[in-house]
């Protein structure tokens, strides 16, 4: 673009680097310093190794189990979408990809309305058998956590594995069949080894998400189950034991980085074009009996898995199920808009009471600012990465690291560094949007980078030779081409910010919560109205994120992936 390309590239890097150094690496360093320098100070006297090993063991256990279960559901689903054509295929695929974009609190609330004490199943059983207490204690259990994780991450397996499966040359399997392999042998000896890279990569990604799961475990696991993430939160926010929280963060970060590196390693394509289908892959209608049975079974299972929790949440937010305390078993069932109406009413009771509309206003404001910050930084970073400069190789990993650091770690780091004026949250309202921007930044870069790289330099040269100045080139060549990807990434940033819970739970001012923080607060308080309001807010959040996800699916280019 200019005569000194390296200099311009450096200039592009400058602002994102400075931002990252100040708002990401500084807090990270603070955590490390806390852990390694105050080893013998107060916090450590009460330290017992079990404080680390217990949550660590549980985190590995649940992440391992969740990943296995997700594979059990996700692999047949990936096969279904890679090979078969059936009525409603497109809708089902969109539904199965939706959970990835849903905020954790919404998912947790949805499962609460299904299996919680005030949820459909328990309320139905109570009404049916005249019980006074919910009979099933499904909430606060390991199965609840696993179920929510399967709900969440099946979409990752479906996305990654079904796309590489549908690109696999079907003649490889046919060749195996002709050489005497049964369908099962052809699968295990040919298809499976060829799918292995994407299968491993997807599994590690799922493991990573399960490993760093926070909101789901906090809200569905209850006090006896705590993963590293939840334990960091507990140690920092409830016990004020920052050194232990920091140690957990460091361990967490180390493991996350290891898994990420491993994931990048297995993700590299091994066979080039040799395994790819030279023709456009054709979906086939299920022809044989077992295929029809399989398709019907999978469609029903996936609808059950994906639609039931969501529908449960939405319906429950419109229904009162209040048993009169005097008359055992007399349940008043009725349609109501009360929970939604109450969102907009100020019914202040306690000093911590914040009207829900206030939380909605906060969240929208934060999301708007996040879009600005993450959008601007993301574009600068993507442009810098798109340019050919020798130092890019060293700078790029610096920007992908925030993806590996969990939101809770980020929250903890912010808490350590920005706990005094002018940074304290009460005086500096930008702290939450900045945290959200750090979380969303890698997604913006990953969406924008391929789009920027796709613009041939000759287009810019042609328009310059036709008399366009650099600004005009940017506005008339780059911008129209990038518009789609920009829109995709900004909608994604919006939904990320709106639903972000981990960092916000650390940083939000008690008097100015975000929507997810308010949902968490309301749902854990007794009373049907609180519960109902949490569900109403969750449903609204679900609606916005669902629309955002649909919008992204509509405008994103084929092959553009968000992770």
């Amino acid at each position, binding site marked *: 673009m200019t005569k000194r390309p390296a200099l311009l590239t450096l200039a592009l890097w400058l602002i994102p680097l400075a931002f990252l150094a100040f708002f990401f690496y500084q807090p990270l360093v603070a955590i490390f310093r806390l852990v390694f320098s105050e080893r013998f100070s107060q916090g450590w006297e009460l330290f017992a190794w079990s404080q680390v090993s217990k949550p660590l063991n549980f985190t590995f256990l649940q992440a391992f189990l969740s990943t296995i279960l997700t594979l059990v559901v996700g692999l047949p689903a990936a096969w279904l979408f890679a090979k078969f054509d059936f009525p409603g295929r497109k809708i089902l695929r969109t539904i199965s990809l939706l959970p990835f974009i849903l905020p954790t609190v919404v998912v947790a609330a949805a499962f609460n309305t299904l299996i919680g004490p005030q949820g459909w199943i328990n309320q139905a059983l109570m009404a049916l058998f005249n019980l006074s207490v919910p009979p099933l204690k499904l909430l606060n259990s390991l199965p609840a956590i696993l179920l929510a994780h399967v709900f969440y991450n099946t979409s990752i397996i479906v996305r990654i594995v079904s796309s590489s499966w549908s690109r696999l*040359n079907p*003649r*490889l399997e*046919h*060749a*195996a*069949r*002709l*050489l*005497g*392999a*049964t*369908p099962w*042998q*052809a699968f295990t*000896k*040919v298809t499976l*080894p*060829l799918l292995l890279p994407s299968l491993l990569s997807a599994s590690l990604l799922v493991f990573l998400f399960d490993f760093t799961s926070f909101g789901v475990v906090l809200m569905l696991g209850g006090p006896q189950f705590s993963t590293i993430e939840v334990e960091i939160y507990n140690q920092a926010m409830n016990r004020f034991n920052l050194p232990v929280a920091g140690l957990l963060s460091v361990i967490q970060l180390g493991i996350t980085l290891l898994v990420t590196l491993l994931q990048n390693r297995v993700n590299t394509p*091994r*066979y*080039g074009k*040799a*395994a790819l289908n*030279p023709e456009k892959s054709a979906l086939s209608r299920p*022809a044989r009996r077992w295929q029809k049975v399989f398709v019907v079974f999978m469609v029903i299972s996936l609808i059950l898995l994906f639609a039931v929790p969501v529908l449960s949440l939405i319906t429950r937010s419109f229904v009162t199920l209040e048993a009169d305390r005097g008359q055992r078993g007399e349940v008043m069932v009725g349609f109501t808009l009360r929970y939604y109406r109450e969102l907009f009413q100020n019914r202040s009771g306690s000093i911590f009471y914040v009207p829900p509309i206030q939380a909605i206003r906060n969240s929208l404001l934060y999301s708007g600012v996040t879009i600005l910050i993450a959008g601007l930084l993301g574009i600068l970073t993507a442009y810098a990465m798109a340019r050919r400069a020798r130092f890019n190789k060293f700078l790029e990993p610096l920007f992908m690291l925030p993806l590996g650091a969990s939101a809770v770690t980020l929250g903890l780091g912010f808490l350590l560094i920005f706990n005094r004026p002018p940074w304290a949250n009460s005086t500096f309202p930008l702290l939450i949007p900045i945290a959200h921007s750090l979380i969303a930044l890698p997604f913006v870069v990953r969406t924008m980078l391929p789009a920027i790289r796709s613009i041939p330099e000759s287009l810019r040269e042609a328009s310059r030779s036709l008399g366009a100045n650099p600004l005009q080139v940017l506005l008339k060549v780059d911008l129209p081409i990038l518009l789609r990807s920009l829109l995709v990434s900004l909608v994604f940033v919006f939904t990320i910010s709106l639903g972000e819970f981990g960092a916000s739970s650390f940083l939000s001012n008690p008097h100015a919560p975000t929507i997810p923080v308010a949902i968490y607060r309301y749902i854990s308080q007794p009373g049907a109205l609180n519960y109902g309001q949490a569900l109403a807010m969750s449903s609204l959040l679900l609606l916005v994120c669902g629309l955002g996800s649909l919008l992204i699916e509509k405008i994103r280019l084929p092959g553009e992936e968000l992770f």
Partner: protein
Amino acid sequence: MLEVQNLTKDYENKPLLKGVSFEVAKGELVCLLGSSGSGKSTILRIIAGLEEPESGAVLWEGQDLRDVPTHKRGFGLMFQDYALFPHKTIAQNIAFGLQLQGMKEEEISRRVKDSLESIRMQSFADRPVTELSGGEQQRVALARALAPSPKLLMLDEPLGALDHTLRTQLILELRAILHQSQIPVIYVTHDREEAFGLADRLVILHDGVILQQGTPQELFEQPQTAWVAEFLGLGNLVPGVVTQSKPLTIKTAFGELKVDIQPHQFTLGQKCQLLLRPEDALIGTQYSARENHVECLVRDSLFMGEYHQLELLCGETMLFARSQIPAKIGSRLEVSWPAEKIRGFPG
């Protein structure tokens, strides 16, 4: 040995095969010849059991294969893109079918060694297949298909992806290997040179039906339809109308031609096509006393080695003829096609 009976198959709701029947005898190499999209590969896939026909049957030694799954048919198929397993070495690719037969390890390695020797790639055994050139891949794919000694070998455009020089060389190699193996072969191609160079018998597929089958010589000498004659590139096809039935006389754009042999009965006023082979053309004034002589303008004369290819303009019609001596471009020539050498087809 193999009998294909009346296969029909639809593709995207349009009929692709409209009743295809043919047979393959023991040790016979049958070439299935047809233009691309004619459904040749689909026939192979149906025989292999990878696809099911809408109707019709595939029989092996009289037994209907309808309920025999692909892996139990014992047929080999070499795919157009070879479909070598990219996660396996060359030796492992060849050993794949043998392992599935439950053969002992020593026996497998001995057979793989022999197999690699027959395609002259002994030193390549442990290389990944992704490093091979097109011709090498083709040889490995053939070796892999032959290794488990299939009852029938099918090859789907095996030379399709290769360049011309390599093809001519490989046709000879392939012929040697296939004839040595004594296995019946169905060889699918759209290339008539390949087909004529290899086939014991040719089966010509067009528009979902078999137009003609026979030895290369039969097809060459007695094409049954104008399409077959044109597809095989047998010579000039000239449209005309029957003006007299005895002797059969046909009026063309450049004059009336007498025709002695014809596979079909013609009626007066019927439209038809005539095949005038370039090699049958008699050139020179010494033949002007004979029937069917035309005066032409020499547009071009090309030296082809054993003969000169003349491009002649007769009235508005362009005709090709072979000549032992070159002709001067722009000069006029007398050409005649003897009545007993012309073939006529209706349509």
